[in-house]
């Protein structure tokens, strides 16, 4: 187990002759604490797989260095980095038993058979595979096979980190839920650094202690799930975390107070000086509510999502989403809305304007 450090890592795939390089990964300096549970979260094409491949050594970055516990590993091949990986689709040997599949990474490294048995038994127990050890892997369902893949990632004790690349893609939702909890439990038990790549915010937030949000080749924010939800540093984080995402609305400033829909919003965190640039407020749908006085809106759509309702309203040309309680009535006549002043954020050119609550 070790701490992993990125120092000014940047990567460009070789550009066509005579053209300037385009960076698939913008500069990243980041310390991955020993034993931490991290998620790399972002849409496809954001650079998260590039980053993962740089950690595992499948890719050597064009700039910067990678250190494991302070030792430079930038040029080391994957095999020498002691990294375990679990991929999107199960990688199992169909003709082998579950036991032999789990034992494979250990036997490969010449571990004594008695120790192999001990370790495989332990991991099988953690994954509820104990009663299937003698079964052939070919007879298992997709989630059973993916459990074996997870097990093979977890079975080695000498790894620096375990990398998961969208490991739950092929799993049914109700089993996803179980496997996710299982993975979190395993992390608590074995304490190895885990890095989990996904485009699914729920998976990222439920698994990780720290989430690294990526967008357009760069890291836009590293934070705990709560920080990402309450204090997104970039409008993209506000949009990407949370479902529905944060409302981002154009605003002006008057004496440090944001103004939208001709109304002073009474933010609890006014700014001292007008920062200039493109100004927008960010307000989560959870913090928008109907009120007797406020911004007049027209209701466009009400969606019943079971445990809550998502209401889409419009003020002039701006669409606003709000989350309303399961049993709450939607006002029929001239509805007005208000934004919770404590949870109102201000953005300048898409980046959060630092106020004292930042």
């Amino acid at each position, binding site marked *: 187990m070790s701490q992993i450090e990125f120092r000014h890592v940047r990567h460009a795939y070789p550009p066509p002759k005579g053209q300037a390089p385009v960076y698939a990964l913008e500069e990243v300096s980041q310390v991955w604490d020993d034993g931490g549970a991290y998620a790399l979260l972002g849409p496809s094409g954001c650079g998260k797989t590039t980053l993962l491949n740089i950690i595992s050594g499948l890719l050597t970055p064009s700039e910067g260095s990678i250190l494991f516990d302070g030792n430079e590993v930038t040029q080391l091949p994957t095999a020498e980095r002691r990294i375990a990986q679990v991929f999107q689709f199960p990688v199992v040997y169909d003709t082998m038993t579950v036991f032999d599949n789990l034992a494979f990474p250990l036997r490969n490294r010449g571990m004594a058979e008695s120790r192999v048995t001990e370790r495989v038994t332990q991991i099988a127990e953690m994954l509820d595979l104990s009663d299937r050890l003698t079964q052939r892997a070919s007879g298992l369902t*997709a989630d059973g096979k993916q459990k074996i893949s997870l097990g093979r990632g977890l079975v080695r004790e000498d790894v620096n980190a375990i990398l998961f690349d969208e490991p739950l893609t092929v799993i049914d*939702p109700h089993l996803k*839920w179980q496997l*996710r909890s299982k993975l979190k439990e395993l992390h608590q038990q074995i304490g190895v650094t885990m890095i989990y790549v996904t485009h699914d915010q*729920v998976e990222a937030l*439920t698994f990780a202690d720290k989430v690294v949000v990526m967008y357009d080749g760069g890291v836009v924010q590293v934070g705990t799930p709560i920080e990402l*939800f309450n204090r997104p540093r970039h409008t993209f984080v506000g949009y990407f975390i949370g*479902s529905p995402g944060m409302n981002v609305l154009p605003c002006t400033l008057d004496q440090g107070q944001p103004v939208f829909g001709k109304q002073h919003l009474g933010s609890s965190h006014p700014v001292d000086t007008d920062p200039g640039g493109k100004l927008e407020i960010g307000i989560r749908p959870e913090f928008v509510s109907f009120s007797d006085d406020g911004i007049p809106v027209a209701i466009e759509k009400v*969606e019943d999502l079971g445990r809550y309702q998502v209401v889409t309203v419009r003020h002039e040309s701006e669409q606003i989403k709000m989350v309303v309680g399961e049993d709450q009535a939607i006002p029929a006549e001239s509805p007005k809305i208000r934004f919770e002043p404590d949870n109102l954020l201000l953005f300048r050119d898409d980046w959060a304007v630092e106020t004292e609550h930042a």
Partner: protein
Amino acid sequence: MAIELRQVSLRVGAETHIHETDLSLQPGKFNILLGTTLSGKTSLMRLMAGLEKPTSGQLLVNGEDVTGIPVQKRSVAMVYQAFINYPSFSVYDNIASPLKVAGLPKDQIDAKVRQFADLLQLTPMLHRLPDELSGGQQQRTALARALVKGAELVLLDEPLANLDYKLREELRDELPKMFADSGATVVYATSEPLEALMLGGYTATLNEGRVVQFGETSTIYRQPHSLEGARVFSDPPINTAAIEKRGDSAYLSDSVSWKVPAQLAAMPDGRYTIGLRPHHLLPGGDGVAVDGEVQISEISGSESIVRINIEGNNWVSEAHGIHSYKFGARSRFFFDSSRCLYFDANQQRISTGP
């Protein structure tokens, strides 16, 4: 297009994929098939499309028996989870291909291709080949090609399963709108309860090759006829427990009890099962208090999800806000007993409505 299955079943060798099923889809509406892998969603769709001949029963389209009529003769479009494109065609030509086959004039083809490319956010990639697209973009291309035909019956088999989360969210919003004016009957298979709720329309819950219940999506969610139906339509899984009913009270244990609705009070004493959705089990508030041991807690954005062992039952609480727990901690949770669903010995729900 009105589609009706009459006593349709499908057996393959010794295995029954679909048990005898009666189902009339809502014409011109969104019809969702909700169930896990192997629950029969794909088999039902293949039967509706005419790609599979039923072992017994009839398929009626607009009241006419079309059992055994091949798919090519009918106005059907089907989109699979794993999408397929023509590798040597540009995105534009991929989307245009069904319209060219149909012999539409060039300007109409162009307008339609652009309309659907725009809808699926493919406009900047119209001249690329599928190989030069990301996985998500390839899937959107295939989706556009299936939609552009304007078929009367559109079968979508988990079409968003492989897409990015946020794109999925946007398309869930867009898809019902796209079809709203087309008059097409849409059948949409999903394994995600929340997706069914987001799409709205009508839902059939499926389990082990049977249609458990069919009706308006929110009714199927709130008023399942059986425990099976409630289970299919709950994620995280619905909390269940055996209770002892005596007189007008329900006992979860000697120390945890509450008054039951009149309909249940009038029924014989004995064992019943309750179902309680995770978002109705909360870390604070009023109602019935239960103590349990926290097994795991997760925070997903604005929600906290906690797994707790309560009176020997593995329950889940899903609450708004951030609540942190230590593994193994004893903690108290609450539920409003009016949120309980009650099931009899045959796991049929006892109606407790007003």
